[in-house]
């Protein structure tokens, strides 16, 4: 599966390096949602994360001619997104504190009326729980389970030590469960 993805990526990258903007559009469509989720893990704000994503993809487009396939394209892309997000977070912290998250607004879902949560509601609860996790834990969880990166690749992307990646992953697993239990109680079983 991974090799197939890499083959498809390589084909697209060659085309982009030849100046094919449509190939770049396809590449963006392939990675945009996972990338946005990563940026949100760090800045906890959807519109800011989208701006970061735009900047990151522009950096990728400008520098793709230098891409030499020493790593997977996804590793390179996620590294740029994570770097840009942390830089933006630092910049924001210097100026003003980031506003409260705007992407999971309210969770006033009436549980009594909906014993089984709809998929959209499930997503809202899970996103809220992820938002409540520590930045590093949420980031490592998403890189590992959503982006299917290995521990070694996560260490390269985040510049965390291998042991920190393992610890964050372990704590992330434990804490996401705790957060969901607090938000949903027994109904956590409907999520699985």
């Amino acid at each position, binding site marked *: 599966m991974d090799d197939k993805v890499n083959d498809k990526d390589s084909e697209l990258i060659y085309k982009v390096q030849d100046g094919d*903007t449509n190939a*770049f*559009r396809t590449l*963006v*469509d392939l990675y*945009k*949602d*996972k990338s*946005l*989720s990563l940026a*949100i893990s760090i800045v906890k704000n*959807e519109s800011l*994360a*989208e701006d970061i*994503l*735009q900047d990151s*993809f*522009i*950096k990728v*487009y400008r*520098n793709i001619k*230098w*891409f*030499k396939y*020493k*790593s997977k394209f996804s*590793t*390179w892309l996620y*590294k*740029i997104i994570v770097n840009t997000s942390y830089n933006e977070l630092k910049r924001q912290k210097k100026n003003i504190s980031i506003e409260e998250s705007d*992407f999971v607004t309210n969770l006033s879902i009436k549980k009594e009326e909906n014993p089984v949560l709809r*998929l959209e509601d*499930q*997503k809202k609860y*899970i*996103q809220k*729980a*992820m938002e409540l996790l520590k930045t590093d834990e949420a980031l490592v*969880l*998403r890189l*590992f*389970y*959503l982006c299917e990166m290995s521990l070694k690749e996560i260490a390269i992307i985040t510049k965390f030590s291998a042991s920190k990646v393992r610890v964050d992953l372990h704590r992330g*697993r434990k804490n*996401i*469960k705790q957060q*969901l239990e607090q938000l949903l109680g027994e109904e956590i079983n409907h*999520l*699985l």
Partner: protein
Amino acid sequence: MNEKDIKKLIEKSKVNTRFNFTDRLMQKIETQNSLQTSITFWSFRQIVIGFILVAVISGYLIYKILGLNISTGNAAVPFVWSLILLLGLNYLLSINNYKSFTNLKN
């Protein structure tokens, strides 16, 4: 909760971009591309023109305004000076480009 459950759970935490995200991005890239192509630094022609200009100005300053009596053999001074100056500027620009590249290299 086993690994499979956690994976399913985290996959549901994926946030989708707005519907016109890619269009807006491509538009931004195209705008920046058209701006970049209209400004090209350090083409061969500009280097030659720059070199000649700096050499002529340096020569004029040395021979006329300062009134220095430099022998014919030293006429190469302004030319060498121009070359060093332009090479130095080119070096600074290359370093700058290299730095921005290494920040992003894979």
